[in-house]
C-alpha cells in the first residue's frame, strides 16, 4: 500500500510539471502579452517595449519558464501583473470561493436530485414521474448562462428576494445571512445540470434495485414499503450515484466560470478568465498549478477511500 501511495505521489509531481509547461506554452503562443495591457491604450511601441523589459517578457521563452520555475519551487509564485497581489494568496482565496460555490451547488444538486429521482422511481410511469423527468431534461438542456440570468430577472429584479451579484453586499458589513443570500442563486444555477443528472441516475438505479431478489424477499417477509425503500433500496441505489456525484464535482469546478461571471462571484474561474484575457502569466500559471494540485490530491484520496470502503479492492 505504501509503495502504491509513493508511486502515485511521484506520478503526481510529473503531472504537475506537465501542466505548468503546457499552460505556460499555451499562453506564450497566443499573440499579445501583458505589456500591451499594462502600457495602456495610448502607448507607443517604445513604451510597450519598456514595460516588456520590466516584466521580463523580452527574454527567450525557455528562460522565462525556468525563471518562473525557480521561484515557484521556493514557494514564490510571483505577483499578479494586473492586481500586483501575491499570486499564491490570491489564487487560494479565489479557489476557496469557488469551492464554497461548488460545494453548495453539489449540496443543492444532490438533495434535489436524489429526492426527485427517488420520487420519480417510486411513482413510476405516473404523471409525477413524467413531470419530474421533463423538468430534469429541461434543466439538463438549459445553458447555465441563460438560467442564471433568468433566475436574476425573477428573484432579484422581479421579486426582490435575493441579490444579483457578489459574494456579500457592497453596502453593508456582510455577515452570515447576507452571505447565504448571495449563495442561493449561483448555487442553483451551477447545480442545475448536476441535479438533473443525479435525478435521472437515482431513478434508474433505484428501479434496478427494486427488482432485486432481496427486495422481493423483504417484501415477502412483510417489511413495510417506506422502511424498505429507506433502509435497503435507497442506500444500495445510491452507490453508483455517489460515483456520478464525485465526477460531477470536477465538472462543477470547471463550469463555475460562467456562473461566476454572471454573478460576479469572486472565484478562480472568473479570475482565470480575466488573467488569460490580460495575459497575466504569473496568475494563470499559479492558478493552473493550484487547481491541478487539488485535483491530483482529491483523486488520490478518493482512490484510497474506495479501497477503505470496499475491502475487495486492494492496491499493491
Amino acid at each position, binding site marked *: 500500500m505504501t509503495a502504491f501511495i509513493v508511486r502515485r505521489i511521484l506520478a503526481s509531481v510529473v503531472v504537475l510539471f506537465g501542466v505548468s509547461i503546457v499552460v505556460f506554452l499555451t499562453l506564450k503562443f*497566443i*499573440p*499579445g*502579452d501583458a505589456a*500591451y*495591457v*499594462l*502600457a*495602456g*491604450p*495610448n*502607448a*507607443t*511601441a*517604445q*513604451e*510597450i517595449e*519598456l*514595460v516588456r523589459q*520590466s516584466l521580463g517578457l523580452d527574454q527567450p521563452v525557455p528562460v522565462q519558464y525556468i525563471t518562473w520555475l525557480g521561484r515557484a519551487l521556493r514557494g514564490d509564485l510571483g505577483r499578479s501583473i*494586473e*492586481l*500586483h*497581489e501575491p499570486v499564491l494568496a*490570491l489564487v487560494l*482565496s*479565489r479557489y476557496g470561493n469557488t469551492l464554497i460555490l461548488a460545494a453548495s451547488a453539489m449540496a443543492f444538486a444532490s438533495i434535489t436530485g436524489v429526492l426527485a429521482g427517488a420520487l420519480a*422511481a417510486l*411513482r*413510476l*410511469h405516473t404523471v409525477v414521474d413524467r413531470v419530474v*423527468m*421533463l423538468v430534469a*431534461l*429541461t434543466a439538463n*438542456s438549459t445553458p447555465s448562462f*441563460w438560467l442564471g*440570468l*433568468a433566475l436574476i*430577472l425573477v428573484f432579484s429584479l422581479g421579486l*426582490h428576494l435575493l*441579490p*444579483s*451579484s*457578489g*459574494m*456579500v*453586499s*457592497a*453596502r453593508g458589513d456582510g455577515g452570515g445571512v447576507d452571505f447565504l443570500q448571495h449563495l442561493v442563486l449561483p448555487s442553483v444555477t451551477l447545480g442545475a445540470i448536476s441535479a438533473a443528472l443525479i435525478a435521472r441516475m437515482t431513478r434508474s438505479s433505484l*428501479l434496478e434495485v427494486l*427488482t432485486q431478489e432481496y427486495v422481493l424477499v423483504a417484501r415477502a417477509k412483510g417489511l413495510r414499503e417506506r422502511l424498505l425503500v429507506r433502509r435497503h433500496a435507497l442506500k444500495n441505489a445510491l452507490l453508483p450515484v455517489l460515483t456520478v456525484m464525485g465526477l460531477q464535482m470536477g465538472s462543477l469546478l470547471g463550469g463555475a466560470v460562467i456562473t461566476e*461571471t*454572471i454573478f*460576479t462571484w*469572486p472565484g478562480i474561474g*472568473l*479570475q482565470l478568465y*480575466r488573467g488569460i*484575457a490580460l495575459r497575466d502569466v504569473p496568475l494563470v500559471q499559479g492558478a493552473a498549478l493550484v487547481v491541478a494540485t487539488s485535483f491530483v490530491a482529491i483523486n488520490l484520496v478518493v482512490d484510497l477511500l474506495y479501497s477503505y470502503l470496499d475491502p475487495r479492492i486492494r492496491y499493491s
Partner: protein
Amino acid sequence: MRQPARAREFLKMPPMTRLTRMNRRLLLRMAAGVVSTVALSACTAPAPTAPTSSALQPASAPKPTDAAAPKTGGTLVVGLEAEPGTLDNSVGTGYHTSIIQRMVYQSLVGYDLTTTADVLPIKPVLAESWQLSPDGKVYTFKLRQGIKFHDGTAFDASAVKFNFERASDPNHPFFFDKGRGTSAQIFSLVDKMEAPDPTTFRITLKDPRAYFLALFDKVPMFVGSPAAIQKYGNDEFGNHPVGTGAFRFVSRESGSKITVERNPDYWGTPTYLDKVVFRGIAEPTARVVALQTGEVDFINDVAPDQIDALRANPDIVVSQAAIPHTWLINLNHRDKPFSDVRVRQAASLAINRDALTRDILKNTALSATQLEGPGGVAHDDSLPGWPYDPARAKQLLADAGYPGGFDTVFALPTAGSGMLDATRIAEYLQKNWSDVGIRAKLETQEWTSYVPYFFKGIPSDKGMYAMANVTGDGQDVEKLNAASFQPPNGFNVGWYQSDQVEQLLVQARSTADPAAAAKIYQQIEKLLNDDVARIYVLHSLQPKAFNKKVRGFVNPHSWAYTFNNVWVTT
C-alpha cells in the same frame, strides 16, 4: 404491489418496445428544446419604445424641479465596468481604476470635472499657480502650503519630485517599473525637474509642448505620500494608497469591493458623502440589474441593449455626455484600392452613421466627424464630416476604376478600450459597404491578440483596421498621422503621410500657447478630413446611469468623472 411489478415489467420488456418508449423520450427532449429556445428568445426581445430626443442631451445637473439642498452623509455604491487593478499612483491600469485613484490622489493641475464646458479648463489643484517661461520650456509651479497627506505627513515640492522620479528614474530607490509605459509618454519630454524650495517645483522640457499641462491629468502624475511609499514599499503601496484627495482609502476586499471615506482634513471643500464603495461588475446585464435592484447606486458604461429599459424606469436617471472618443477605421494608404482618395471617399460616403447610432447604438453615440471627439482640444464643431451618399460613392468607385466594386479585408477586435460592441458595428458597416460594391470580409480577434497585430501596420493584402481614439489632448493628432509614428513606432498603421500635415504638426507641437496650438490642430483636422486619412464612424456618449437619489452629479465631456460634489438623499 404496483411499483416493483411495473419496474420489473419495464426491464423485462423486449428491446424494441423499450425503444418505442425511448422515442417518446426523444419527443419530450425535442419539446423541451423548443420550449427553452422560445423562452430564450422571449427573454432577449427588443426593449420598450425608442427614447425621445432629450436622451441626446447630456444630463449635467439634476432635474430643475429638484430644490433639495445638498445634505451631508450617506454612502454611494458604484458599479464599475471591471474589477479595478492596483491603486498605486504610478500605474495606470485602466480608466475604471483611475476613477478611484482620482479620488484618493491629486495632481499639480487637472481638468475641472465639475463643469460641462465643451473643452474642460485646466485648473490649479495642488499647485496654486504656475508660470511658463517665454521659450515655452520651463514650467514653474507655486505649490499650495499647509496641505497634508492622509497619513499626516506634509505635502511639498520634494514629495512631488519623489513621486515623479519614482515613475521615471530607474536609479530611484523606489522606482516602480510597472508604470513605465504610461509615465514614459510624459517623462520622455522632460529634461530636468527641480524642487528649489518646499513651495516651488520646476520642470524643464526638452522642447516646448503646448499640451504638456494636460498630461498632468494622467495617473502617473498623481502625488502619493513618500512616507507611505517608503513604509509599504512598491509591493504593498497599492494596497495602502495615501494621497491628498478629498477621499481617503479605507479598505479593499480583493474581488469584492473597495471603500473610500471622506477625508476630514481635506484642504479644499469637504465632500458631502461619508463613503463611496466601488465594486467591479464586468457582466453588462448584471451591472444594470444591480442598479435596478438597488444593490448599486451608480453604474458606468451602459450597453445599448439595456439603455431603453433604464430610460423607461422612473427611478433611474440616464446621463450621457459627448467625450473625446472616436471609433475609427485606419485605411491602407500604401496599396490599392485605398491609396486612391476617391475610393477612400466612397467608403466614407457609403456609411449611414445616423442610422447606425440611432438603431444599433440606441442613441448612445453621435455620428463622428473628425479625429477627436467633442471635448478634445482639436475638436471643431463646425466640421461637417462626411454625409451618407451611396449614389455618389458608387460614382466615385466607378471613376476610380472599380465599377463592379472590389473585395477587401476589415480587421477588428471583438472588444477593447473604446471599441464598444465592435463586431455589431462592423457587421452594419459591412452591409453599408456591400450596398455600394465594397465587399469587406471581417477578420475578428480578441483584443489582446489584436493589439500586436495592429501595431505591425496594415499589410498589402488588407484594407482596413479598426481602432478607437480615446484622447483629446492634441498629442493623438500627432501619433496617428506623423510619418515618424508609422509602424513599428506607433498608431499610424495605415502608412499615412502628408508633407503639409507634417509641417503643421511640427508647428503645433512647438507652440507653447494651448489656444494657438488648438487652432493649428483644427487646421490639421480639416486637412485630414478632406484627404480621408481615415474613416471616422462614431463618438461614444459613454452613458452612465444612477438612482434618482444620487444628486449633484456632473457628467463632464471627459472619460474621467468625480463624486466630490455628489450627495445622496435617503
